[in-house]
């Protein structure tokens, strides 16, 4: 029973990643749109988009980390 609850909690944790996925897609969409409007600034937009995506990805990584902690530290 306890193990099942832990697995459920870990799965719930990873759900935090889905919002990150949508928003990271939004970053890519905006970057593509602005490169389409202004192709000369492609280099700057690219690096900014990558930084933005990487920073917003941190949230999903923390979710994953908490899930790992639940599985491997609490569950072991």
């Amino acid at each position, binding site marked *: 029973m306890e193990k099942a609850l832990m697995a459920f909690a870990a799965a719930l944790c990873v759900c935090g990643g889905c919002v990150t996925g949508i928003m990271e897609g939004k970053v890519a969409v905006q970057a593509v749109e602005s490169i389409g409007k202004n192709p000369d600034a492609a*280099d700057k937009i690219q*690096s900014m988009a*990558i*930084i933005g995506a*990487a*920073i917003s*990805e*941190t949230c999903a*990584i*923390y979710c*994953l*980390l908490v899930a*790992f902690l639940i599985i491997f530290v609490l569950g072991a």
Partner: protein
Amino acid sequence: MEIQSAVYSIIIVTLFMALLLVYINRKLVKFDPLSRPTGIVLLVIMYAQMIDNMVRSKTNEKVAKYLTPYIMTVAAYIFLANISGLFSLEPPTSNYSVTLALGAITCILIEVFSFICRGPKGYLKSWFEPFAPFVVMNLMSKFSTLLSLSLRLFGNIISGSILMTVIYSMLGNISKSIPFIGEFNIVGVAVAPVLHFYFDLFSGVMQAFIFITLTVSFIGKELPEEK
């Protein structure tokens, strides 16, 4: 004290990188600057130019002179460490100590360059900006830089390697249902290369690139504005 299994792969990757650098150094010393570069020399020259352009566009000349060699080394090391999963080693970056060390180097470099460019007085003042009680927030932001840089690399690589382990055991179970040759993981051989391409090669290159981009732009952000 128990030795973690990642220690061996750290030693192997470091040794391989040292040998590679010695080999490239030999090639570069022999290389005639007037002739056309080919092979590994061309690759190294293109790599150096790419990193140099990137660092120069985000920082100033004085910083770029000292920062470029470090960025080149750390990018090559993270890339080699990330793709070492392809050679059935445990990736060194899937050990938190390694990524914490890399993040700590970046954080110390940010402080050092900030100190050099602002001077002692300006550096002390930057801790209390925009006004004095913000020292707590500044301290927290420095700490969170370290945490997010190291955890991003660690989380990405370890999620890739854990997913590969899970997928291999799943495919092994599936291929056991095939008669006669099922003991050999035959479905895994067919399916795994695509996943290895994504989780090891693509993710490895992307994470190395993201790490150096973030390092350079964090350092560039700390520098005072110049005309």
